[in-house]
């Protein structure tokens, strides 16, 4: 391969990766600024990051509807990437807002937190916009390595350190699978460009008979299934979610999961549509397994972070239902659901942060006893998030599930939809359990330590609005999601 350097530079259009550029530059600048900011004033870093995130959001939105490629086609700006970038920015913005108070309380408010969140976001964005296996891998690594740090960010806490270590070891292992898969796919097709892989596969007479390609694809899938915490690759989730600092758990549950789905969607729908029969069969089984394992294990959890960890596994299962459907309804459902999930899940974690006490970051469901009467507004917000997670109307969670399951029904996967809704009904039990404690149990405490600071209040308002409003008037977001999946 002869590379003409001059020609290569001509293909670079920085506008395509403008959101990434903004966040990277800001992240590096903040690392420097951090040195000069006294440890009491780290909150300024949070606000600066937020400004950058909003700016990146504008940069991303400005490209809506304009299809651009850059770096000789290895990164793309399309509606699909932009929609996902917005999901990541929402997750990052909310994570930044809910971090300060918690980190301050746990004495680990190091300024590096915010740049690392930004770098994670850049990684996720590359995952969504990468159209080359190499770009996707770069994005995945940038995201994952930053996440390992974030999981272990409370370095004086043994659980947090354990979470970081565990996530790193298992994550590295899964990356190995992914790389191996990429190597095999490259071996068969001779290219890492997704569009070219697609062309080559479509020219094969029977791609499913090519075992190297098949194994390659499944290994690739394995890598991503690990990231989205699908069963049976979910074992890391409860421990990491429990140990990681709560704001980072919130971030991890929303952003990287969506990023995993973004890359998986692009890979499977663009590169491997010819092998749809193979991967839908596998994902059908995994969707059922993931939903069921997640929900039924969550039923038994007292620790609220572990419960939400299993619940996040179950939610990955619901999203996989949309994947199996692989039609516009299902895939746009995934996009809508990931956005809603970012709002409702981070919102729920924000309440958990507020109710938690210093030094006891791992609250149980019982700690919520009596919150409903002592802190009605906070409890009402939590109730909204929980009902949305359970898929009750009129919340975004319901509309998302409706579209996911509709996609499955549309393609004739009735049983998958039925298993999905029955799972949903089972999940109601553990979400209600929190509500039961908040409202139906007498309070043993006054919750006098619960102080809602401005950033976290803003996060709660935004999450509540993002959970409720799309539940009542979902048309716009759904239409955007459908435009987004049209291009891939």
């Amino acid at each position: 391969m002869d590379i003409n350097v001059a020609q290569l530079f001509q293909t670079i259009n920085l506008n395509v990766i403008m959101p990434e550029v903004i966040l990277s530059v800001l992240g590096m600048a903040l690392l420097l600024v951090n040195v000069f900011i006294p440890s009491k004033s780290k909150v300024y870093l949070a606000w600066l990051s937020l400004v950058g995130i909003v700016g990146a959001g504008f940069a991303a939105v400005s490209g809506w509807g304009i299809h651009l490629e850059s770096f000789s086609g290895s990164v793309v700006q399309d509606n699909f990437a932009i929609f996902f970038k917005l999901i990541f920015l929402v997750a990052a913005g909310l994570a930044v807002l809910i971090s300060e108070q918690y980190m301050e309380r746990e004495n680990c408010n190091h300024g590096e937190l915010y740049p690392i969140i930004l770098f994670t976001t850049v990684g996720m964005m590359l995952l969504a916009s990468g159209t080359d296996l190499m770009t996707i891998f770069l994005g995945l690594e940038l995201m994952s390595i930053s996440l390992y740090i974030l999981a272990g960010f409370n370095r004086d806490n043994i659980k947090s350190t354990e979470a970081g270590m565990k996530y790193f070891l298992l994550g590295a292992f899964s990356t190995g699978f992914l790389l191996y898969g990429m190597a095999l796919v490259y071996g068969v097709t001779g290219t890492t460009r997704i569009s070219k892989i697609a062309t080559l596969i479509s020219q094969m007479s029977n791609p499913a008979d090519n075992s190297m390609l098949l194994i390659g694809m499944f290994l690739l899938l394995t890598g991503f299934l690990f990231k989205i915490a699908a069963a049976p690759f979910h074992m890391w989730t409860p421990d990491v979610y429990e140990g990681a600092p709560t704001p980072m758990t919130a971030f991890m549950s929303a952003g990287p999961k969506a990023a995993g789905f973004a890359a998986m969607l692009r890979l499977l729908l663009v590169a491997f549509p010819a092998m749809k029969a193979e991967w839908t069969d596998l994902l059908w089984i995994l969707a059922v397994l993931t939903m069921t394992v997640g929900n039924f294990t969550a039923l038994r959890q007292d620790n609220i972070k572990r419960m939400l960890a299993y619940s996040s596994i179950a939610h990955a299962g619901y999203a996989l239902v949309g994947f199996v459907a692989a039609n516009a309804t299902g895939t746009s459902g995934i996009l809508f659901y990931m956005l809603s999930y970012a709002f409702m899940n981070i919102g729920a974690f924000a309440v958990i942060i507020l109710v938690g006490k210093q030094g006891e970051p791992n609250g149980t469901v019982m700690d919520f006893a009596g919150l409903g009467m002592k802190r009605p507004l906070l409890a009402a917000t939590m109730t909204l998030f929980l009902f949305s997670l359970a898929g009750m109307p009129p919340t975004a969670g319901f509309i998302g599930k409706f579209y996911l399951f509709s996609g499955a029904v549309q393609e004739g996967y009735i049983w998958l939809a039925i298993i999905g809704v029955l799972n949903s009904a089972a999940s109601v039990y553990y979400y209600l359990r929190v509500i039961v404690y908040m409202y139906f149990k007498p309070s043993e405490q006054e919750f006098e330590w619960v102080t809602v600071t401005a950033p976290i209040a803003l996060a709660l308002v935004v999450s509540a609005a993002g959970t409720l409003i799309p539940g009542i008037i979902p048309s716009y977001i759904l239409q955007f999601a459908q435009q987004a999946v049209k291009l891939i």
Partner: protein
Amino acid sequence: MSNILSVMTFLPVVGVLLLLFIPKGNNGVLRSVALVTTLVTFLVTLPVLTGFQTNADFQFVENVPWIAAGPFAMRYNIGIDGISFWLVILTNFIMPIAVLSTWTAVEENVKEYMICLLLLQTGMLGAFVSLDLFLFYIFWEVMLIPMYFIIGIWGGKNRVYAAVKFFIYTMAGSLLMLVALIYLYFLGSKAGITDFSLLHFFDLKVDPGTQTWLFAAFALAFAIKVPMFPLHTWLPDAHTEAPTAGSVILAAIMLKMGTYGYIRFAMPLFPQAANQFAPVIATLAVIGIIYAALVAMVQEDVKKLVAYSSVAHLGFVMLGLFALNEEGVTGALLQNLNHGISTGALFLIVGFVYERRHTRLITDFGGLSKQMPIFATIFMIITLSSVALPGTNGFVGEFLILVGGFESSLRWWTIVASSGVIFAAVYMLWMFQRVMFGELDNPKNQKLEDLNAREIIIMIPLLIMVFVLGVYPNPFIEKMTPSIKKVIAHTRVEPVITAKVAAPAEVTAPVVPAATPAQHESATEPQPAAEKPAGH
């Protein structure tokens, strides 16, 4: 006013917004605001009551686009016809009574309580007026949330169990209905239907095999709500634990949601399956009638007894619906109202006693009639109405159901069910005797005070309705008849023709008897109803 139904449906939400701005603890103000809201909502219903035309069309229709994305288009499509008309009135009639009944019963968290009651009203009204399947589903689910809180926060000892059971039972059933709903939509979209509008789906011809499954999913969701044997187990728990207003609303309105669901959705949408399932449902209904009556007989708790009587009464309603003739369905719908009034009143009565004595055990009472003569009179009238004494409302409904059932293919079921009438008399009158007559030997009962003015005021409208419906039910029946005829014409499948329909193409149209061409026309032509201003 063309959007009067919307105004009515969402007025309680306005009340909720007002309540939010009233500080906690101002119980008097909170109660008054809630009461005024429900009263205003009732007043808003009056133009509906007077403006409703006696025909089979949907009236006061509002139809605007709501969600449009991808394969789906949901519309905010509401309206009422003879089937939903009285249920809407009943809801708005019962709500002020329910609010007034909690005046002194609920002392803690009054604000939240009233908010829940008002949200519940919006949910119920919305479900009754929805003509869009998706919109109906939303209201149907939303209704659960306030009721869950009402039972869970203000309920009795075992309230958490009852509330969670209520919620999950209902939710599991509805979710399967949701899948059926989605499936139905895609069937419709293949036939050119582009939205969730109920009227369009009435004309959809679904092949019999598919109908069976779809009907089963809908029927399950509604059967849980009715509740039908053997899915009734949540009901005694929920009723016993719920506070008085919760029980009243649950019995008077929410259970009607199940029977309403059958006659509005499950039966006319899937007529062949409805005919096919009629014996099964009739069997369950009859088992429900007899079983619930027997269980009611041995209850020690008055409230539980009334709860089981609900199961029996709704068994009659189901039997009447599936008789699928005019008498049966009319009786069923009338009995829906009667049950709302009588059982609602019974729960209020139980509430009065419970508020005074904090017990509901039959053995704790006896001879109350000596101490509380007004109470005794009212209780007697309601009891007699519940056991369907001629002259009271219960008689008309049950009589029509039995007549209808006897004329239909469900004759033998009806014969068995009639024995339920006797059982009802046994358990109700026996309970009444043990509570009200005999020696006033319990010293705690000797100081009981008779009903106060507020309690009497609550009961008066109900008593009036007992006699009005019992003596002169015609105006009520008249409003319903055209719609009932239309539904029956649409749903009824003569056995001979059922056998012929091997090709899924003809389900409804050829089946309609030649005598009712007009109704058939309006069944296939929903647009005129939407356009007609219906007198407003």
